[in-house]
């Protein structure tokens, strides 16, 4: 299937499971097409490994369209590789040069234990969402969309926060493995809209408490998360979460 002309050296993190130690293993790939996606290049590698009777590299992927948040991979020291605003599946081999050595590691965080090789368990994010990242609505017919007037700026900001696909690149790149960009995006997308108001202050407290319980680190505002986020989630969300948290703790009379 590969008809290109790129020769690459891959250094891939191989780790049997969460209990054993992992290490980088070298692989040589030849005739890689520059039009391939990074994951397709991994498919070629795995085909070769299977043909040789070796264990293929385990990695997460699903839609391969840049919208599902499943793919990960820490490529040459950056989550989702060298390009801005793309996921690993949308990264193409033309972003590399013939003869390059590419180091691929899994996301590293205590809250994201390695399952195998490049796959980590990101269910900590699910538990943060389950703690409060929802709205409670009555059943029945949906109301007319224009019943709730929402200023355009507000709607846009909520939409931008909602673009978060929960891939975990923010945690992966943060020197503290902090999940604040993710959590703040999930809080903001609801805090900015009228439907999110009834549970706004309860939500921020519950989700922050769950985030802390999962063992993510603390934000030091380096801005690495924003720079590496494939969806361009802004640090404004973290500031909004901090404001809401302060309001919830010091102004709201409701305690959680």
């Amino acid at each position: 299937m590969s008809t290109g002309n790129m020769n690459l050296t891959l250094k891939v993190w191989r780790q049997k499971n969460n209990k054993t130690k992992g290490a980088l293993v070298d692989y040589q790939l030849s005739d890689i097409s520059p039009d391939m996606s990074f994951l397709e290049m991994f498919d070629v590698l795995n085909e070769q490994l299977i043909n040789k009777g070796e264990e293929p590299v385990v990695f997460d992927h699903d839609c391969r369209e840049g919208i599902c948040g499943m793919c990960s991979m820490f490529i040459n020291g950056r989550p989702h590789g060298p390009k801005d605003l793309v996921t690993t599946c949308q990264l193409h081999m033309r972003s590399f040069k013939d003869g390059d050595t590419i180091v691929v590691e899994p996301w590293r965080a205590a809250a994201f234990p390695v399952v195998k090789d490049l796959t980590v368990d990101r269910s900590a994010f699910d538990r943060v969402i389950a703690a409060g990242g929802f709205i409670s609505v009555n059943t029945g017919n949906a109301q007319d969309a224009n019943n709730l007037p929402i200023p355009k700026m507000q709607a846009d900001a909520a939409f931008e926060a909602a673009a978060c696909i929960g891939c975990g690149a923010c945690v992966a790149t943060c020197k503290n493995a902090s999940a604040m960009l993710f959590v703040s995006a999930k809080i903001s997308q609801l805090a900015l809209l009228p439907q999110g108001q009834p549970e706004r202050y309860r939500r921020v407290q519950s989700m922050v408490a769950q985030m802390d319980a999962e063992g993510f680190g603390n934000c030091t505002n380096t801005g690495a998360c924003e720079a590496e986020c494939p969806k361009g989630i802004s640090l404004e969300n973290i500031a909004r979460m901090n404001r809401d948290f302060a309001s919830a703790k010091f102004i709201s009379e409701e305690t959680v």
Partner: protein
Amino acid sequence: MSGFGNAFSSSIGKKFIMGVTGLFLILFLIVHAGINSLIFLDDNGLKFNIGAHFMATNWIIRAGEYILFVGLLVHIFQALRLTIQNRKARPERYVVNNGNANSKWYSRSMGLLGTLLLIFLVIHLKDFWVVSRFTGIPTVDANGNEDLYAVMREKFQDPVRVVAYVLLMISLCYHLLHGFASAFQTMGWNHSKYNGIIKSVGVWYSIIISIIFALMPIAVYTGLIN
């Protein structure tokens, strides 16, 4: 306290404490740099000694001194706690990590810069604060005030001390460059109408404060003022 729950023990609460104490220390540096700048009047330290005398005797300032020490210790211990937690959050480090691609080195090195400042602080307190508060200043100036300026002149005859002070003011500058704007972000002050102001005030503040402090040992040592 039940109503406040985990307000201060949560990750965001701890950050608030870092930010508030940081901003408090930033205000302190303005006062400190302001009073010390009196040496640049080049009046043999007379005005500076008046300022130092006021700072040492005024009861509001003395009370503020205790708050300052508490603030400083809280800032240091909170930083230590946060750093330990943050280390735990990533037990296995990356083999290759290209941090410069996404963030400034000094924003990732606040702990290192802060530790350097702590070492500086110990030396600095021993050089001046212990002398003025405890062991006593040996001489008085023409106004009859204790001559702290003379102590300063004597200390800054030592070239090693002068170089150390200047180098550590560079680490102060970088610590402030990140810390100033970071404190506002932590407290939720991220607003399109203010971000530019906060950023530029932060940069100018960091540079100017550090230059003022660094100029003191340089000016005394080179004899620009006497």
